[in-house]
């Protein structure tokens, strides 16, 4: 037993070392170590220890710790040394197959749009157009290209249909399908947490722990919680400790410290090479036009531009999303994402692998509402390259799970199942009633979860919610919140008699206060 644990640990260490080798942090550490040789406190006899000590006191050890912590958070722990790479992406075969066929459909849709409109997937811009775009870089929103012929490749509800049809071919529970065991839309047997497990998992959200979003309201004197919490936050920032920051934000981030705390957790430091990389992506945008750019434009115009609060950030959204499509470093995340980047072939060379490229270059095809992942971040970050890096990191840690089919506990399938199970178990009457009137709850809550509630909650509430996503490194809170919203409006929902009426009751979430809802649902409801 011990031996297995040891090999597991040493394997993990080996993999992390492998990934950090050759990174800019590695070269910086080497440079620092070499530079320290001139210092008097470094002695030849105790070279190793002295350099280690130097790196500790100068803060470099902390930076290394943060990088390791980041790796641990993002990459899944290795299961077995002999596990094939597909298992890292997604261990269950039927899930992989389902994701594969979904991707085929998306690609087909994209290709047919391409042929219909006779627009190439990519083309080099003429010099005149390049100049024009460069001039207009800070106000691309003023452009009004004709987007009427473009349509989003898919919308969340198309994706929901696919998830509803997921079945595990190895699962046969022998029961006749009846109302007792087929109440919800998701019919796959994944393990999800129940309320006692959630209470334990989200223990920092309990009634006896101070929270921003509850204990900072105007009636509560700030001496009771808020002032101390802010002080602790400032200390965490001074110490530059990622792990501590992640623990800290579970109780919420003070508005003034949030931007820095999130950057610390995501290990984003906006080094010169990062800025340079962003500028490189920008020049890629200037030089080449991609078909997905039109999809991005359309999405921004349809969603964020029409939002009462995010319309102001329209230009930033283009600056982030157009660069994002061209960022090949995003391809790395496909090693742990069940999805596979679509391949395209140079004209005339279909099927020939030497002429295959990933399309779009980052392998991510945007869908209707995609820009809403970026919009809330514009509240916190104003420097384009930093905003870009934060968004990219958020995507490869969290958001990708919301639109790919996998068995991961934070994957959208598990979230849907968690939501339905919570509702079924704790509000069975409501669940049954809604189902009877043809208003399956998941049909309404799905879009909230796919967008991580962006665009549905008021911005300050959304940021408090995303604090907890970062704090717990999990998206399960989205499912819990969705159930809590239904619980909150249960009385009204019991009175409705149609799906449309149920949608109407739940149409406006902008007045909801997220933390009290979560607290009540998890800790104050009699189960």
């Amino acid at each position, binding site marked *: 037993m011990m031996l297995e644990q040891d090999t597991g640990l040493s394997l993990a260490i080996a993999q992390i070392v492998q990934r950090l080798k050759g990174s800019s942090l590695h070269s910086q550490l080497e440079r620092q170590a070499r530079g320290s040789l001139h210092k008097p406190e470094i002695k030849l006899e105790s070279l190793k220890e002295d350099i280690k000590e130097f790196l500790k006191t100068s803060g470099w050890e902390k930076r290394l710790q943060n990088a390791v912590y980041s790796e641990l958070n993002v990459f899944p722990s290795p299961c077995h040394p002999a596990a094939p790479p597909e298992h890292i992406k997604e261990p269950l075969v039927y899930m992989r197959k389902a994701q594969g066929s979904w991707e085929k459909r998306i690609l087909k849709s994209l290709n047919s749009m391409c042929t219909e409109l006779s627009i190439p997937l990519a083309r080099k811009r003429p010099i005149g157009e390049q100049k024009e775009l460069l001039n207009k870089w800070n*106000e691309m*929103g003023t452009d009004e290209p004709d987007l009427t012929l473009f349509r989003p490749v898919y919308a969340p509800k198309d994706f929901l249909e696919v998830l509803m049809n997921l079945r595990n071919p190895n699962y046969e529970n022998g029961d006749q399908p009846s109302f007792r065991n087929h109440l919800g839309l998701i019919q796959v047997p994944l393990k999800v947490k129940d309320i006692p497990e959630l209470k334990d998992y989200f223990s920092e959200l309990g009634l006896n722990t101070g929270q921003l979003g509850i204990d900072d309201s105007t009636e509560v004197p700030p001496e009771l919680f808020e002032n101390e919490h802010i002080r602790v936050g400032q200390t965490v920032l001074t110490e530059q400790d990622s792990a501590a920051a992640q623990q800290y934000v579970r109780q919420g981030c003070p*508005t*003034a410290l949030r931007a820095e705390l999130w950057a610390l957790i995501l290990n984003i430091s906006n080094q010169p090479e990062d800025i340079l990389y962003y500028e490189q992506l920008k020049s890629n945008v200037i030089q080449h036009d991609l078909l997905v750019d039109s999809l991005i434009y359309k999405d921004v115009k349809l969603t964020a531009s029409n939002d009462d609060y995010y319309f*102001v950030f329209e*230009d930033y959204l283009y600056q982030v999303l157009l660069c994002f499509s061209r960022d090949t470093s995003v391809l790395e995340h496909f090693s742990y994402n069940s999805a596979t980047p679509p391949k395209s072939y140079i004209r005339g060379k279909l099927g020939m692998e030497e002429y295959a490229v990933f399309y779009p270059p980052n392998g991510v095809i945007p869908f209707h509402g995609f820009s809403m992942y970026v919009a809330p971040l514009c509240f*916190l970050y104003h420097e384009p390259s930093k905003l870009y890096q934060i968004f990219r990191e958020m995507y490869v840690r969290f958001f990708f799970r919301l639109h790919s089919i996998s068995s991961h506990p934070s994957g959208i399938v598990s979230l849907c199942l968690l939501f339905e199970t919570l509702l079924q178990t704790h509000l069975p009457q409501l669940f049954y009633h809604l189902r009877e009137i043809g208003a399956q709850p998941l049909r309404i809550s799905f879009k909230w979860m796919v967008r991580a509630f962006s665009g549905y909650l008021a911005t*300050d509430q959304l940021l408090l919610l995303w604090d907890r996503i970062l704090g717990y490194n999990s998206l399960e809170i989205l499912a819990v919140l969705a159930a809590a919203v239904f619980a909150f409006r249960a009385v009204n929902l019991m009175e409705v008699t149609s799906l449309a009426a149920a949608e109407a009751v739940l149409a406006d979430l902008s007045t909801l206060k997220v933390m009290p809802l979560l607290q009540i649902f998890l800790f104050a409801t009699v189960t």
Partner: protein
Amino acid sequence: ESRSAFVAGLEPRACIRFKCALTNTILDILRRRPGWVEVKEEGEWDFYWCDVSWLRENFDHTYMDEHVRICHFRNHYELTRKNYIVKNLKRFRKQIEREAGKLEATKCDFFPKTFEMPSEYHLFVEEFRKNPGITWIMKPVARSQGRGIFLFRKLKDVIDWRKVKPAGPHCSLFVAPLLLPTHPSCSPSLDDQKDETQVENYVAQCYIENPYLIGGRKFDLRVYVLVMSYIPLKAWLYRDGFARFSNTRFTLSSIDDQYVHLTNVAVQKTAPDYDPEKGCKWMIQRFRQYLTAKHGAEVVETLFAEMDNIFIKSLQSVQKVIISDKHCFELYGYDILIDQDLKPWLLEVNASPSLTASSQEDYELKCHLLKDTLHIVDMEGRLTGKEKRIGGFDLMWNDGPVSRAEGNVDTPENGSFMANTHLGYNNDRKKQLKQLFKPLHTQQKV
């Protein structure tokens, strides 16, 4: 003991008769108010939400009982007309400098340099020549909603404009000084100026070239201040307000594009790419949060304290000239511009802020604003007069600064004084109103 005894002169009435000159949100609110009845054209009224033209024509020869209330002060234009507020602020500033020194007087420097045209033309030219290349904005004193405004950098532009514009009754007086600066008949008499309708007077104002931008867009803030009396000065500040964004990105190169520079919603609505479904407003809470996330809480506190200063100083500057009739109250809409150094500037004060709603959220804000205004006017005689908060309004000035602390022990000299203003804070007015009126209600029953 009846609470109504505290409110002198209010006889218990079966109903409150009101008249309303507008047909927007205020009419809805008045009609829905319990115990209030709309009166026909010639009927007697206890409350009139009038427009300023009625006021001008009828106020002086209308007899009003003690309890009657009307929503404007007779000569509010001392605060709201661009040329008068400039004069009043200049005079007030001089007074402060005499009494409290130069440093204290700088607290009045929140109004961009303004010159009346044509009477201050010479002073304007002097200032203009001292600062070559800066942009100026020409605004008519009496018009609102962004009409008649243009920007210029060259004196030549002003002269050309005057030639092109259709002649007003006194336009020759205006052109003359531009061509013959020493002409003795330049300045129209002060009496003419006081009359709002006849003279088309303008002001030339220094244009703020470095506005604070969000998402590359310029915006201004609309804040609501309710004045119940000038002598003594009693003013309330509403917690809600909004930031109005220009629909297009800000750049100084397009001076002719008035859509960029004028953030009044009324002007925005005529811009070619204006989408009425698209909001171009942020609630001020959202604005406050955005700034806090970007600059930190302390900086934002300072900014909002400076805005409080603008409200109070501007009201103090007209305190002695406005006829403080006890029948009058007024709900002002203040327009504030923030520059890149986070300094707030007063653009103008509106005595008739728009009560037409541009969206559902806007409608609710205005409903609550007006409901709370009527609560403070208190025709029903429910209040004690000692309240520091009513709904979304906080008592900002009561013949002296008002502190958040209970019992008014703190003074501004005392280090821990915290002003009783909550602009951009959470507006839990329903809860507060419930608490406020419950004990009064039960008392009255007894």
